[in-house]
Each structure stands twice: as C-alpha cells, then as structure tokens.
C-alpha cells in the first residue's frame, strides 16, 4: 500500500469482506468486493448496495444569514431551501467554471455540506476565504455511508424507524442505539436510497447491521461509477471541471429562478456574467449522452469526429464504459451545441478506428427517486 493513504473508519471491514483496495483521492478505498463490479452493480439495482463514502468531505456552515452568504459562492437558491431539505449545488469560479459540486442541506441552525474528497481541502479554504463571517467546520469524526437500491427503504427503516417517510432530498436526524445519524434521502446511483452520516466509532457496527440484512451487499467504487454513469450524473474532474460551466454541463436545473435574470437574487456568484449569458443564449458546447453502436466501450478521452473519414474533431468523451443495466457501452462527453441533438451520429476514435456513436438523451436509465 502506498504511504500516506488515509483510511476510513470502515477500512478493516472492507479488508475483512475481501475488498480490492485502491488509492482514490488520497484514501485507500474498496474498488470492488468478491462479487465483482457487474454483480455489485446489478445487485444495487435489484436489491440494496452499501457504499463507504467516508472519503467525502462533510462540512458545517454556521452563522447569521449563512444561506445568503453561501449564495455568494454558488448559483443556487440556498436562502429558499426549506429546513430539512437538501439541494445540489456547485462552487463556480470567476469564469463560470465549476470548482466542485456538492450537496447543501438546511439543518435548521446550520447548513450541512457534502463535497468531493479530492476537492475538500480547496473547498474549505475557499469557504473560509470568502465567507469569513461564518464558522466553517470540517466534520472529521463522522463516516458517511450510502445505502442505495429498491431494497434500501425497507432495510434502513427496519433499523431506523421513520426513514421510510422521508422524500427524495429530505434530511433529518435519527437516533440509532443512542447515536445521532444525519440521514438524507439521496445518492449517486439513480436509485432510491439514503446517505447516512454516522459517528466514526459507530460506522462499522452500523455497516455490519446493514450487511446482516439479506438484501444488502457491499459495493465498491467500480460499480459506484457505472451506476452514476447510467444515471447520467457528473463525476467531478471528468464530466465537470473548472472549464465547464453549469449550463454547458446540463446542470441549469440546479440554478433556481431566484438566481437567474429577473430573479429576486439574480447573479451575485462567481462567473455569473457567463452563466446568466449562457442561460439566455445557450452555451457553445453541451454535455451529451453517447451510445456507441457497436460493443466496444468508448472511454474517457475518446476523440469524437463528425464524419467516418476526414471531417472535424468536435469533442471528446469525459466518462465512458459499459452500462451493466443497459447491456451495452455508454458514455458522456462534450460536443458543440450545434451538434448536440439526440439522434446525431458521430464517430468515436477507438484504437485508431472511428466507430459510430449516437447522441442520446440522459439519463440512460430512468431514476427511481421517491419524490
């Protein structure tokens, strides 16, 4: 194992379960268990999968008008977020690019943020530099688990009565054996499910209690990636980064009316000029779904051409692989807005050969959130 990798509170459990551990965002994380990526993927879609996402950053923001303050950094309506609700957001830079994507929850007297592992140090510095009036506290004594899939509701409700009544993107605190669980009904798989912040000393007992349920299997990062890809969800650093704007990325739905032109709190976030202009006029390029017509996967970096021979290189794949629930290769990438219509045929260059690929709607598989 490379030196200096951080371990989550579930490291010993992963090893005991036979996980293959890999370095990821500075942590030693399970990429798969003996069931394998394909089996873990389909198990999550048909039953319930347990994910360790403790590498992600958990942050509490506290202070007067915290929601309005956070709006200085995100194009999202945070002030209008009701208590007990969560919303998807992104930190933008001055050029309207995305510094990180995150979840923001209104937990009454504070905001609770979940940010990407690889970005968390930069996010904390960013928050502290720009919101000096707020207390910015990284939560380092809690693990984060995700339980995803059609079986998740019954499984978790048996252990934590009451969670079945939550709707998609609700957040609430529940007691489990005398310990506070911060639970949201959300996830990164396109399935119904929950994300559970648990005191790190209780992470393994909770994980074991969940795994004791016949429906639940442990799921690694490999299947997490194929599940989110089928759900059309962006992976930071791949499908979105500091050069892609939320509008280009197809994330305009996350920019509520209050922050748009003519809204009550129009603009006022980094890069608002570009983002509002793109909302009005459309972006130059768009993130699209891609369905290779053959069986060869088109992975990240695959160059996209507008003709089988000659023609122009018009874009590239940002995430791609095999979709186990689709039974075929799937990918996402960026192309000029003028070529982004679903049904447009492009060619992806795989091992020197241009193979046909069709632009399609996202997601590849309809999500099953409990709205």
């Amino acid at each position, binding site marked *: 194992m490379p030196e200096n990798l951080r371990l989550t509170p579930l490291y010993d459990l992963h090893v005991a379960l036979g996980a293959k551990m890999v370095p990821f965002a500075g942590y030693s994380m399970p990429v798969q268990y003996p069931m*394998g*990526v394909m089996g873990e993927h389909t198990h999550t879609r048909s039953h319930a999968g347990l994910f360790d996402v403790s590498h992600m950053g958990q942050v509490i923001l506290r202070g007067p008008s915290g929601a309005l303050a956070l709006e200085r950094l995100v194009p999202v309506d945070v002030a209008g977020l009701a208590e007990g609700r969560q919303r998807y957001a992104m930190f933008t830079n001055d050029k309207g690019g995305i510094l990180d994507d995150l979840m923001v929850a209104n937990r009454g007297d504070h905001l609770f943020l979940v940010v990407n592992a690889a970005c968390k140090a930069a996010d904390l510095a960013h928050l502290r530099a720009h919101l000096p009036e707020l207390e910015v506290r990284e939560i380092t004594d809690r693990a984060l688990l995700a339980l995803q899939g059609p079986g998740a509701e019954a499984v978790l409700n048996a252990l934590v009565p009451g969670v079945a009544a939550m709707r998609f993107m609700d957040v609430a605190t529940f007691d489990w054996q005398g310990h506070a669980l911060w639970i949201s009904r959300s996830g990164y798989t396109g399935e119904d499910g929950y994300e559970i912040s648990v005191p790190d000393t209780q992470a393994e007992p909770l994980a074991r209690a969940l795994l004791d349920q016949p429906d639940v299997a442990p799921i690694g990062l*490999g299947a997490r990636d194929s599940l989110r890809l089928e759900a059309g969800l962006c992976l930071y650093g791949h499908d979105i980064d500091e050069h892609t704007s939320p509008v280009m990325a197809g994330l305009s739905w996350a920019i509520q009316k209050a922050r748009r032109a003519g809204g009550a709190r129009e603009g006022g976030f980094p890069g608002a000029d570009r983002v509002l202009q793109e909302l009005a006029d459309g972006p130059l390029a768009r993130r699209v779904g891609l369905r290779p017509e053959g069986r060869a*996967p088109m992975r990240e970096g695959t160059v996209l051409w507008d003709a089988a021979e000659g023609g122009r290189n018009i874009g590239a794949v940002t995430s791609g*692989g095999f979709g186990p629930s689709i039974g075929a*290769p799937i990918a996402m990438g960026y192309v000029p807005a003028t070529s982004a219509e679903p049904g447009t045929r492009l060619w992806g260059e795989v091992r020197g050969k241009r193979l046909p690929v069709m632009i399609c709607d996202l997601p590849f598989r309809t999500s099953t959130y409990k709205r």
Partner: protein
Amino acid sequence: MKYTEEHEWLRVEGDSVVVGITEHAAEQLGDVVFVELPEVEAVVAKGDEVCVIESVKAASDILAPVDGEITEVNDALTDNPGLVNEDPQGDAWFFKMKLDDLAVLDDLMTEDEYKEFLG
C-alpha cells in the same frame, strides 16, 4: 498446457495451438464486456497485439504468444464476452494458431512453473 508471462495458456492440437487467458488473468480483469478477435489467416509475430479485451474496468491487449498464422477464432466471445469470466481455460479460448515449429513451446512455462511465477 503451456503458459506465458502475459497470463495466456496454450494447448497443443496437432500442429496448432489453442490460445486463451488464464483464470488468474480473467479474475484480474474483472467482468469482460468486449472482445475483439484477430482476422483468420492473419500472420502474426510473437508480441503482436492480436486481441483487445475490455472489462468493466479497463482495456487490455492479448499478445501473440509465438509466431504463426491465425487459423480460427472463437466468435462466441464476440456475442458473449462474459464467457471469459465463466470458463477462461475452457470454452473461452480466443484463437487457434498454426505454428511453423512447435519446438518454440518448449520456452514457455509449464503449469507448475506458471503457478510459481504467480507466487
């Protein structure tokens, strides 16, 4: 059965060999989702990339283990790449090659030597 350091197995059939990947290789690759086979009658040299094999995780090549001519490919893998995980050392052979000189197989590992190689 003979083995290479690239985790291929070779089984002699007359003046030809049948080539596939070992159980160890299949396990390391994970679930195979795509196989691209060589052209029949292709003349290949040892070390040439003759097959592409993609798992849910990554793409890798299968190299020609020896010099020879491809005489037959296992089309079943194109339609059912998962066969590589189910029966890597049996039904999931990749191709057959005709060799000029079977003596080159003497340089390859025996099963015991391969097991030792895996450690």
